[in-house]
């Protein structure tokens, strides 16, 4: 080997290493998110373009995989390094946990100027504020207790959309007769949890949900109602296709879109995939509340938490927060993403039927007090408890735990994670 | 004044003292051979002279300059290694020129020097080859060339012939000798082979367990070994060591051999002092000092004739070695090649006492 060549090469390489990663744009925001799926990325592009119009460059930091777990690793690394991104997509209790670490920016002035207090639902403000101060700009409100049905399959079965669990099971049986997968599901803990929380709400009603999931009442977690929930989960499990394990949610949605599966229990982000496939609500697919959960909303809101990044980036950060709460953006974003605006003062004119329904349901639930945080998405419990509960739910669904064992394990797991 | 002085060199590695105070002087142009069995410390001493292994105490002086603390490259020495240590990635030419290059000699001068050395060693045709393409003998020459080109104050050789086959070894040995005679270089040479030591050296140092046993010319070492170890180590077949006792015989001292009062030989002339009667001694006789009576040098003054049983006959072509046995002890004699003797026969051996030496079994030292 020619040593002289190597030494020149090494010197060159060292120079590359030194110069790379220097240069920073002056007015820019760096955004960490895990919206890499097609519908999500398209929705986010709206925000990117809006900001670019204001002269703020967008530094994208997408970290996909594992429902944001890789993103959380990256975030920890950046915050620990003392160099956090400008804004980070975060959910529920994670916002509080991070704020508790004293790394959040204060958005009070902007919020006061733009009157966020009046237009953002109180249940959501609990999470967008820490210690009474605004720390995050909520982008949207999702709800998780939706059922998406392929219209053609439903028509073929000659059924009306189900309104309770029994009708739901009957519909799945019909789908089975058609030779399609009755219900498309992805066997990933958060998806298992999303289905479970809908079943809890359907079988136990909103009060039971509050008692069991929000208040973690040990008796509710192991009582007869909960037994019925787990039994129902086992029943639904028999309608899955054999390949469900580990499947991404959007692939399950695609199965329903293509008519390979009849229905999917999934949050309203699922609609983004339908729209991207040029399908129309009402004609190609039906969106209903998960049977038996009408009148309640399990919510989950994407928020951009603003991190304390110092004065030089402060202006861009506030511009971004303001852009997020801009009603125009709220409409543009949420019509694509499938969610509803985080502001209640936005007109539903531009939204499709599902969107309109979602906004109506939300307003109703907010007034009735049945707008409750979703467990699977971190709006019901902190991460430790959430994950401990998901462990039990997913192990039960996969047949590793019997129903009785799950009922015993659930309160234990919660207690151990507290 | 001596050119190379080794002053009280000691070396301890861990708790083991490998060199226990070595003192040697060598004149300019001398050929010093360090000889001894493996583990005697000869290589350690050579490494200390080279500067590759710092001694624990003592000094190395070359040409009046204390070099003990100097880096090997600043001692102006050259070394030929047992494995030759040719740089595998360089051609023969580059190998020989490397030391000059390190010393900043310009290219033209280097080439001239390499050419000169290659000519001396007759390796001109090998210059462009790499070490892996050379035979053992060729590598050996290149290794010497690498040392010669430097024209150092002292050459160090670390068992340079041990990797060669027997025939080549004799040839190269002769070449080294010729080289020394032509260049008058000062050489320190390590070997465990006593024939190499005898043929090459102007001065031999016999080492054992980190101490000097004897320093002397080859003939001193051979003929007047300082102790039993040296006597046994130098020479092949080894010197006969015959147990005996001092007795008085007709007013003169004599030695009774083989524990037999009747087998008596005169006290060898090498012993000048008077010994007490009954003292146990060891009589050392080289095999060539025990012969058949016909081979005896007529000039010899003191001879004893002893008849013994023949237990083995080993013809080598030039000589025949005959093993004699008497009263349970055996000795080797060097006789004429055409001697008529066969195993089991009684044979008269002539003991040449002029060449005999006497040792004290208690101190193992030679008695003069």
């Amino acid at each position: 080997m020619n040593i002289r060549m190597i030494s020149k090469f090494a010197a060159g390489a060292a120079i590359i290493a030194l110069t790379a990663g220097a240069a920073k744009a002056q007015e820019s925001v760096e955004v960490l998110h895990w919206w890499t799926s097609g519908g999500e990325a398209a929705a986010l592009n709206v925000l990117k373009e809006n900001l670019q119009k204001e002269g703020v460059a967008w530094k994208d930091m997408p970290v996909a995989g594992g429902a944001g777990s890789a993103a959380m690793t990256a975030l920890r690394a950046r915050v620990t390094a003392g160099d956090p991104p400008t804004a980070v997509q975060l959910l529920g209790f994670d916002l509080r946990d991070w704020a508790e670490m004293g790394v959040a920016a204060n958005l009070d002035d902007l919020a006061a100027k733009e009157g966020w207090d009046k237009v953002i639902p109180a249940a959501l403000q609990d999470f967008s504020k820490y210690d009474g101060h605004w720390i995050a700009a909520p982008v949207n409100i999702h709800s998780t207790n939706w059922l998406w049905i392929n219209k053609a399959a439903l028509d073929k079965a000659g059924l009306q959309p189900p309104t309770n669990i029994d009708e739901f099971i009957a519909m799945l049986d019909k789908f089975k007769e058609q030779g399609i997968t009755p219900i498309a599901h992805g066997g990933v803990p958060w998806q298992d949890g999303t289905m479970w929380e809908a079943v809890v709400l359907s079988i136990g009603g909103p009060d039971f949900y509050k008692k069991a999931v929000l208040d973690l009442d040990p008796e509710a977690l192991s009582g007869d109602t909960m037994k019925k929930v787990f039994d129902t989960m086992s029943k639904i499990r028999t309608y899955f296709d054999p390949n469900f394990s580990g499947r991404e949610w959007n692939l399950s949605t695609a199965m329903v879109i293509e008519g390979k599966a009849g229905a999917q229990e999934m949050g309203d982000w699922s609609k983004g995939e339908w729209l991207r496939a040029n399908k129309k609500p009402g004609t190609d697919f039906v969106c209903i509340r998960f049977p038996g959960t009408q009148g309640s909303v399990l919510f989950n809101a994407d928020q951009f938490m603003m991190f304390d990044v110092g004065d030089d980036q402060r202006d861009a950060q506030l511009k971004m927060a303001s852009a997020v709460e801009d009603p125009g953006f709220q409409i543009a974003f949420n019509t694509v993403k499938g969610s509803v605006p985080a502001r209640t003062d936005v007109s539903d004119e531009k939204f499709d039927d599902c969107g309109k329904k979602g906004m109506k349901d939300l307003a109703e639930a907010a007034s009735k007090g049945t707008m409750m945080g979703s467990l699977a998405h971190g709006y019901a419990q902190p991460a430790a408890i959430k994950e401990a509960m998901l462990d039990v739910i997913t192990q039960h669904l996969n047949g590793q735990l019997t129903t009785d064992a799950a009922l015993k394990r659930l309160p234990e797991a919660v207690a151990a994670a507290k | 004044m001596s050119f190379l002085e080794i002053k009280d060199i000691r070396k301890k590695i861990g708790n083991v003292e490998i060199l226990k105070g070595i003192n040697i002087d060598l004149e300019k142009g001398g050929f010093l051979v360090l000889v001894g069995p493996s583990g005697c410390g000869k290589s350690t001493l050579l490494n200390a002279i080279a500067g590759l292994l710092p001694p624990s105490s003592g000094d190395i002086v070359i040409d009046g300059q204390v070099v003990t603390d100097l880096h090997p490259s600043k001692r102006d020495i050259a070394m030929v290694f047992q494995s030759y240590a040719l740089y595998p990635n360089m051609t023969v030419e580059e190998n020989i020129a490397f030391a000059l290059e390190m010393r900043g000699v310009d290219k033209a001068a280097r080439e001239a020097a390499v050419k000169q050395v290659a000519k001396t060693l007759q390796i001109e045709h090998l210059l462009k080859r790499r070490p892996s393409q050379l035979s053992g003998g060729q590598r050996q020459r290149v290794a010497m060339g690498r040392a010669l080109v430097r024209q150092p104050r002292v050459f160090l050789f670390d068992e340079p012939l041990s990797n060669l086959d027997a025939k080549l070894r004799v040839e190269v040995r002769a070449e080294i000798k010729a080289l020394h005679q032509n260049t008058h270089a000062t050489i320190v040479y390590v070997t465990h082979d006593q024939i190499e030591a005898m043929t090459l050296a102007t001065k031999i140092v016999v080492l054992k367990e980190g101490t000097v046993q004897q320093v002397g010319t080859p003939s001193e070492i051979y003929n007047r070994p300082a102790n039993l170890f040296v006597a046994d180590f130098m020479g092949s077949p080894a010197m006969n060591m015959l147990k005996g006792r001092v007795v008085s015989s007709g007013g003169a001292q004599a030695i009774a051999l083989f524990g037999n009062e009747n087998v008596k030989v005169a006290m060898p002339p090498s012993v000048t002092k008077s010994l007490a009667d009954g003292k146990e001694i060891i009589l050392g006789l080289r095999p060539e000092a025990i012969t058949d009576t016909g081979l005896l040098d007529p000039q010899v003054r003191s001879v004893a004739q002893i008849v013994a049983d023949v237990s083995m006959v080993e013809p080598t072509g030039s000589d025949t070695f005959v093993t004699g046995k008497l009263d349970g002890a055996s000795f080797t004699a060097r006789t004429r090649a055409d001697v008529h003797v066969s195993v089991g026969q009684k044979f008269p051996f002539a003991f040449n006492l002029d060449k005999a030496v006497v040792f004290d079994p208690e101190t193992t030292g030679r008695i003069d």
Partner: protein
Amino acid sequence: MTTIEPVPVVEPQRQGRTFADGLRNALPKIVLAPSFAVILVFVYGFILWTVYLSFTTSRILPVYKWGGFDAYFRLWSQPNWYVAMQNLAIFGVLYIGICIALGLFIAILMDQRIRAEGVLRPIFLYPMALSFVVTGTAWKWFLNPGLGLENTMHHLGWESFRFDWLVNPKMAIYTVVIAGVWQASGFVMAMFLAGLRGIDGEIVKAAQIDGASNVAIYRRIIIPLLRPVFLSAFIVLAHMAIKSYDLVIALTGGGPGNATELPSTFMYSYTFTRNQMNVGSASAVMMLMGITAIIVPYLYSELREKKQ
């Protein structure tokens, strides 16, 4: 009157140690020092830090409030942790055992003066070149009952063929073993091949003259001579088994349920997604203790053996 002049004693000129000499003597240590310092800080410092963290109340980010053995109590009361340990035992034994057996087998075949060695060698080696981030999708497909091998067999007419380990919680860990063996056995093969090539041919000739059959030569002479390679392979594989992470995440994500949880995935999820950093650190300390138990005796014997 004459006076006898004393003969001047000429003291040999002594060349003392200069600063340059001192520098030269220290140079090797100076060269090694940065690497060693870096290792001290970035490995041993971080280990100490992790140990400390396991005794704190850290959840989302490191905090330095003392929490005693709480994290360890939590760790050992997690059913997940026991699953992870049990899986590591199953995975470790099978992964190391099969890799060594298969690697040795292929190496012996490859050592029979095979013509196409130059083609075959990279085929067995290439899996080591690829990360599971790259091959994960292909593997998931391959093992997926609806898309992969089972589907292919059905296409070929073997309708009753079942291969649903990936989605079967009882069998999923074995799919992880399959993929792991696929990745590492070629590397082990290369190690054994190198070992076989390094054996002195005269020993084999001597055995042949002694009348040993081929099988006997391998069983009695060659394989025992490969002992150091077995040891190296074991160490390499053991540390890969303990560190296996990409493999599990790409194939099963730890599922179905928690059926393929390993200590490495456990540690990652508790530290980074479950906001129980102290428990994650405690599990890291446990893993480090496990690694130490394997490596330190090995290092000790290796480094002592070479002393002469």
